[in-house]
């Protein structure tokens, strides 16, 4: 049984933000989705979220959808930071990027990403991804417990 949590979407492209949120909504995921547009903001958000444990337990992100190509700090740097935080290091991170580079793939997995998905050129196909997220990651998969 998964607690209530939010999904953190780190993405700088406005269109991609719309497509992902659409896919999540259309697949019936009701968790709130927090969107930040760059790497630095992502870190700051998590820092804040990590502090307010009591109030925002419900809205603490348990899943991050992370683009790699971000301004200020890259997705890989964010990932690295996440995995270094005691609070967040167990968080499920799903890399969603246009990069087909094997180097990026290797890096992402080495730094601890849970999945690596390449953005489809037809965003309507993201609906299927949303359904898979709901079914597996948020359904079958048990989220890691929160560290107090």
């Amino acid at each position, binding site marked *: 049984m998964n607690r209530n949590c939010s999904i953190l979407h780190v993405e700088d492209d406005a269109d991609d933000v719309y497509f992902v949120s659409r896919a999540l909504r259309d697949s019936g995921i009701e968790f709130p989705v927090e969107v930040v547009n760059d790497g630095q903001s992502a870190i700051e958000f998590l820092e804040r979220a990590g502090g307010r444990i009591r109030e925002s337990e419900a809205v603490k992100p348990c899943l991050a959808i992370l683009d790699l190509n971000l301004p200020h700090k890259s997705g890989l740097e964010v990932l690295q930071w996440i995995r270094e935080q005691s609070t967040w290091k167990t968080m499920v991170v799903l890399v969603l990027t246009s990069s087909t580079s094997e180097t990026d793939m290797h890096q992402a997995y080495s730094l601890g990403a849970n999945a690596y998905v390449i953005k489809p*050129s037809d965003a309507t196909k993201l609906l299927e991804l949303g359904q898979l997220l709901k079914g597996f990651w948020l359904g079958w998969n048990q989220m890691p417990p929160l560290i107090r």
Partner: protein
Amino acid sequence: MNLAQKTSESAVGASAFPAAGLQLGGDLQGRANEHFVCFFEDDESLVASVATFLGAGLGAGEGAIVIATPAHRQALAERLKANGIDVATLQSRGQYVSLDAAETLALFMGGEMPDETRFRDVIGKCVVDTPKGRSGLRAFGEMVALLVAQGKTAAALRLEQLWNELGEIHSFKLLCAYPMSRFREAARGEDFTRICNEHTCAFPAETFPAPGTYTERLRLVAELQQRAGALEVEVSRRKRAEEESRSREAYLQAIIDNTPECVKVVAPDGTLLSINNAGLHMVEAESVEQVLGISVFDLIAPECRDAFRAMHKCVCAGTKERLEYEIVGLKHTRRWVETHAVPIVDRHANQHVHLAVTRDISERQRADEAQRQLAAIVESSDDAIVSKNLNGIIMSWNRGAERVFGYKAEEVVGKPVTILMPPERMDEEPGILARIRKGERIEHYETVRRRKDGGLLNVSLTVSPVKDASGRVIGASKIARDITDTVRAKEKLEQVVAERTAQLRDTVAELEAFSYSVAHDMRAPLRSMSSYARFLELDFAQSLPDQGKEFARRITASAQRLDALITDVLNYSKVSRGEMTLEKVDVEKLTREIVDSYPDPDLQQSGAKILVQSPIPPVLGNVAALTQCISNLLSNAIKFVAPGTVPQVRVCAEKSADMIRISIEDNGIGISEEGQKRIFRMFQRLNPVDSFEGTGIGLTIVRKAVERMGGRVGVESTPGLGSKFWVELKRAV
């Protein structure tokens, strides 16, 4: 006739001869027919003897016939007269007949021989007609001597015989006379004997001393035998000596004649006294007659005559001389000669003449000239030409070497060649010398040498062995070309090339990075465009009129095409510059996987049949690149079919040497020959866009990938009958 007897006796004392014989005459006078022959040295003795002979008869009242030469007839008549015989009276009485020998001979000669009948007529008549005294008739005949003088010895003998035959009929005493001078040669001995044989008695010439008694005569004969014997021995010894002398002379002459150098003798006045065969050849004479006796100055070039004259004068004065001058032969050929002349004593004139040995030096001059030219060539060459002996000591040094190395010849000749080498190169010398000793040649050996001022220079050396006439290596000749400039230029060029290559590489890398990033960056907005168009279709399906739906669909279609293009460009980029590690790839398995996982909906729609034919041996390649190639080729095979045709594709392989050729055959529309040349190039499309979709990059990617894997790609096709694309890669072992 006491007067006659007295006459004959006194006549006896007057001459040495037949007086001698006739004195002995006791045994002779008794006979009626006698045929004497006497030989004489000089005419006076002959006349005296004949006068004695005839006088004796005339004194006794006998008749006398004289058949002699006019001179002898006259002398005889005078002698008889001097002896007290009245020739004139006897002649008028017919008791003394004097006839001319030649005329009388002519009367009975028949051609070459005396005619017997006519002889009898002429001489016989004469013998009969001349009145005889009590004692008989005496005759003196010179006709035989005349015949012998004419060389008709046979006729003379025949005449003697005729006289003898006549003597058998009539009785008379005949005296013939021959001059001894006719019989001087040993060969005439036989004739002499024959003549003597025709006579009853032969009397020796007046030089024979008058012997007295029989024993004295015998002793005389013995002495004569000894003298004759001694003479014979002396003669044969002299003959032998002559032979030897002749043969030695012939040998010496042969030596001179065959001497290959010209040997000549020149008189003080310049006349050519003798010249040998080599000399004749040198002056272009055919025979010795052409030049003997001419002035030697005629054969000397005018400008050299004074020098020759001076030399000739010295030689004839008694000194040895030598001269080089030019001669002009009888056929006007000019040549340079060298002569060594010595004085010798001329055997006739007892003065010095000029004996010379002359040699044609044209060859030597030509060789000298050639050598001078070669030396000039070496000297004038810009390259350093240096020779050294087998100990590495410099023997010669040309002007080029002075210029290249900075040393003057006198500074380096005799020094070891290692003075030209910087320390780190000195160990080259033993190796070079060893190869030279073996007769090897070293060509274009690039190394470094040191100038006099210490500066280093790059040189290209060619070292050749120098051999003596017997082929033994005695040293080396070295040509050193200063290639410092060339070397520096080459280094500079290489540097420039390296820089440019690096620049090019950077540029190419930049371009590739650029194209990659551009293509990559194009993806995001394209994705947006494409996705919104789709959402438009999905979300507003009901409110959108058909036209609107159509527009949205077209946006999507275009976006997809652009996406395919970008994907291909990115693929090409990856295949061009991405890593291409090669490993053993199981192509058969890979192909089957590709076929099985083919996502293209067209595949199912078209009902295409793809046959992968075993065996397909493994190749050396890159999995990702090969996947790309096979996918592209299969995709083409299925795509390019005539409408309504079910695509049939066969994948198979052939082995050749160390390559594997993988073929993908289809039953598509085929490609024209012209098209086959273009299809592997970037963006080449053979068909209009609406007939068959495609970016025009697919085959370019295949070609690039295959080339980077070390292979080749090609096509065989006939329009309308399908195509066979082949990929050739190295066989994996």
